């Protein structure tokens, strides 16, 4: 019987990302948490078949909410919406390269900040300086998280043989070449 390495890999990655995200301090030069969990969820969304990807998103969203003091379905619902958008975009141009992953996580992180502020009943108007600064900081943090997660997870997946380093060709995506 073949063991599916995705399960231990997912568990370790998600828990490590949650711990790293919680430990990362909010500083003056980067006034936002680094969204490692969102990045992990989106990495799985781009590279794995749908049951694995959705499970990863559910766990990432639940951990973000549980450890961030938010209602349990706040981040989860947002990540599932992003997943749907990713699947649509994947048919057109999106693949799991490092640069596109970074941009995707940056955009998703900014949207997530806005979404969380709406859930938390933020007092600031949407077009206030503070809100725009928060979105900018979240996008920067997302770039960093995307770089770390897509680089590390991609390497780990290739080393463990879960993804063959096949370039997209004839419309075949990495998600479909998952073994």
């Amino acid at each position: 019987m073949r063991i599916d390495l995705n399960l231990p890999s997912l568990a370790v990655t998600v828990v490590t990302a949650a711990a790293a995200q919680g430990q990362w301090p909010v500083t003056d030069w980067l006034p936002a948490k680094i969204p490692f969990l969102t990045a992990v969820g989106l990495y799985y969304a781009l590279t794995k078949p749908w049951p694995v990807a959705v499970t990863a998103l559910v766990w990432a969203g639940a951990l973000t909410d549980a450890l961030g003091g938010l209602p349990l379905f706040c981040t989860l619902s947002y990540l599932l919406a992003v997943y749907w958008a990713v699947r649509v975009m994947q048919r057109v141009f999106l693949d799991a390269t490092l640069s596109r992953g970074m941009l995707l996580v940056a955009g998703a992180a900014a949207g997530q900040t806005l979404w969380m502020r709406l859930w938390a009943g933020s007092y600031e108007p949407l077009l206030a300086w503070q809100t725009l600064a928060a979105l900018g900081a979240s996008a920067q943090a997302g770039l960093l998280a995307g770089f770390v997660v897509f680089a590390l997870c991609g390497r780990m997946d290739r080393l463990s043989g879960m993804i063959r380093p096949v370039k997209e060709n004839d419309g075949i995506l990495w998600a479909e070449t998952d073994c």
Partner: protein
Amino acid sequence: MKQSKMWVWLLVLSLGALLFLNGAVRDFAREAVYPFDNACAWFDRTVGVRARALRVRAGLAARNATLERDVARLRVVAAEAESLEAEVCRLRALLDFPPPASCRWLAAPVLARGGTTAVWQSLRLGKGSLHGVRKGDPVLVPEGLVGRVTDVSRHTSEVMLITDPNSRVACELEVAGEGVGVVRGILFGGGARPASEPGLTLLYVVDPLRLRFLAREFEPAPRTRVATSGLGQTFPKGITVGYVLESRLEPNGLAREAVVMPAVDMASLHEVFILSARRAHAD
């Protein structure tokens, strides 16, 4: 095919747990990252402290001389404090003031700040229900009040800081002078900056606290000490909360509002004390 089925089952189970075991999922999440958090705190305590000590080694000799002078001065202060303590004890006995014997101190390391989202002003501490921590327990440091415990798992507890917009603390001003009486108010955590302060401001800067519903006729002097009044039943009386910066009439003109700077620097906390009530069954 079999593996795909397994993942679908896992997904269904995960969603089921989220739907029906809300509180347990939160506890499980905190317990899952607890070893990592604890390892980071341990690393900071052992390796981080030594690394920082090595970095400042060059200035240690000069600092040592300064500290020796300080120790000599503090010995004098301590002697004075001892005599004052004796006087306080005598006066308390006269007033039949009950000592806080029903409480105990519990030192706890700070594991993380702001959770994973930094939406709320919160801390995660490395002590939980296993150590006797309960929801609502006050959290302090020698400088003053930090906040109160809002959630507890076996090994960890979440603390809502007094700087959180949702925090409310019953407070009073330490006012010297005759005929003033006790001036009490409710301390609100920092929140949105007022619209009268436009412009770009950095995020997560702690806004000053607001002490509201003070008597309108009394204008407190800057640096007046603000302490807990004990009327809210959550915090014991007399814990320092902060110092008044300025005061003004509230917009409705019925009461006065003071801007208060917290006594504790929340960003530099490494260890805190939880004031835990003694319970017969827990002890």
